[in-house]
């Protein structure tokens, strides 16, 4: 650099250039929710980064200890408010395993279909925020068009766009209207694939996007294991850990799909893994609609559930990674301890390591790749 030039170097040593400490605070356009980051900058290079969280801590784990198991379903919806059916399903699996409740065949198919549909909408939301972070206004608006169509299906069948409260212990609330299923089948088969191809053309093929994402914040598999990173970020570094395959639940073992992985481990790999996952999830939802058996959707469960005393930890593949529910029950209708292992909490804890030495504009490309939801991090 110019500093080590003999004549100029001396000048550089005398004139000390200070670094500035910057609050990339909770009220910031591209902080997904209320995430606060203190950056120490020299020029535009980040010397040190310290994330501060807790601005959306509503104390869900404490409130859950004062509610019956069925009432906790409302809190579970508001944990990761972008992929709600994954939270509900993980919570139902934990209680069903604790209280040994059987789930009928059709309910398993329905749960898998809804989980994959919500994975598509969650990745669409992530795709929009990646475009927004990198300065493009169009990806957000385009990503919301297919998302609204899928929300129409959610609203028609489960009653609400964002907070369905649709799953029950032992199945789902009610069956799905076949006409809606046919309409969604037609949409998923053709229009969603066209929309995804259009997004590829708009962003993936964009040379500016590629130059900003290639080789950014690489991460190896054992680094990911050391930091507790799971989900698409882990699969982007080359690991094949996917709980839908390792611990099969629902009907994932009966659908033909393959888990998307990548070996580069940089921001572009995280992007391509999620884009491919959207197509896989759409394919799975299609198969679920076609091969769903008839039958009743819910088994009889006591109105006020009193699971036997004991402890259970269930791991579930949510859109952001390994979502864990650790529930301790003491036989009363209220959980004794209600612990949520949040995937985004661990993924964001790896941020300071990833963005040390990066530039401000690169920081937002990295931060977009982590796809965090503040409600799930702060609980």
């Amino acid at each position, binding site marked *: *650099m*110019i*500093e080590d*030039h003999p004549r100029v170097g001396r*000048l*550089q040593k005398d*004139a*000390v*250039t*200070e670094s*500035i*400490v*910057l*609050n*990339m*605070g*909770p*009220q*910031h356009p591209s902080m997904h929710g209320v995430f*606060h980051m*203190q950056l120490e900058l*020299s*020029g*535009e*290079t980040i010397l040190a980064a310290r994330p501060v969280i807790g601005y959306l801590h509503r104390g869900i784990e404490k409130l859950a200890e004062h509610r019956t198991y069925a009432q906790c379903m409302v809190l579970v919806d508001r944990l990761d408010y972008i992929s709600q059916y994954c939270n509900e399903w993980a919570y139902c699996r934990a209680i069903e395993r604790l209280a040994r409740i059987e789930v009928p065949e059709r309910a398993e198919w329905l749960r898998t279909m809804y989980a994959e549909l919500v994975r598509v909408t969650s990745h669409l939301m992530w795709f929009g925020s990646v475009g927004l972070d990198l300065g493009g206004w169009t990806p957000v608006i385009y990503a919301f068009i297919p998302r609204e169509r899928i929300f129409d299906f959610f609203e028609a069948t489960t009653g609400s766009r964002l907070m369905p409260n649709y799953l029950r212990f032992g199945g789902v609330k009610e069956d799905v209207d076949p006409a809606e299923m046919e309409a969604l089948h037609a949409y998923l088969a053709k229009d969603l694939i066209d929309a995804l191809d259009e997004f590829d053309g708009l962003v993936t093929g964009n040379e500016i996007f590629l130059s900003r994402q290639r080789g950014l914040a690489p991460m190896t598999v054992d680094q990911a294991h050391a930091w507790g990173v799971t989900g698409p970020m882990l699969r982007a570094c080359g690991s094949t850990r996917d709980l839908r395959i390792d611990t099969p639940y629902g009907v994932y073992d009966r659908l033909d799909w393959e888990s998307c992985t990548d070996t580069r481990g940089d921001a572009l790999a995280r992007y391509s893994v999620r884009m491919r996952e959207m197509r896989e999830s759409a394919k799975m939802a299609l198969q679920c609609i076609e091969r769903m058996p008839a039958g009743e959707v819910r088994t009889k469960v006591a109105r006020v559930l009193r699971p036997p005393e004991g402890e259970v930890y269930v791991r579930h593949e949510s859109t952001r990674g390994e979502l864990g529910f650790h529930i301790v029950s003491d036989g009363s209708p209220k959980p004794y301890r209600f612990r949520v292992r949040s995937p985004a909490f661990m993924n964001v804890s790896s941020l300071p390591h990833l963005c040390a030495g990066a*530039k401000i504009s690169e920081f937002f490309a990295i931060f977009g790749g982590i796809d965090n939801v503040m409600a799930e991090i702060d609980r």
Partner: protein
Amino acid sequence: MDTYANLAALVLAGLVGLAFVFALYGAVKLLAPSRPYALKNATYECGHDPLGEAWVPYRLQYYAFAIIFLIFDIETAFFYPIVLVWRQIGTLALVETLIFVAVLLVGLLYAWKRGVLKWD
């Protein structure tokens, strides 16, 4: 060759522009409410108290960019005479500009290799 009226018109345009700007400021003074208090006038830092000063000797390396800009700006100034008479001189002008540009490109290459052109 340009009458003073033309040149004066430029100065007039500048003054009218300035007057327009300050007219807008006056309109704001008249129309807009004004209720300053300490918390409203504090500098904005995403909802926090600003940490430290903003006017610090920020990045010495940006000073190098200004110097290189000056060199190349003056280079374009030297091009004006050659460009005007290029048609009459013909290929001699090409040889001259090639030498002139070669000297300057050496400067650019030197800056490139020293890494001065990297904006970090």
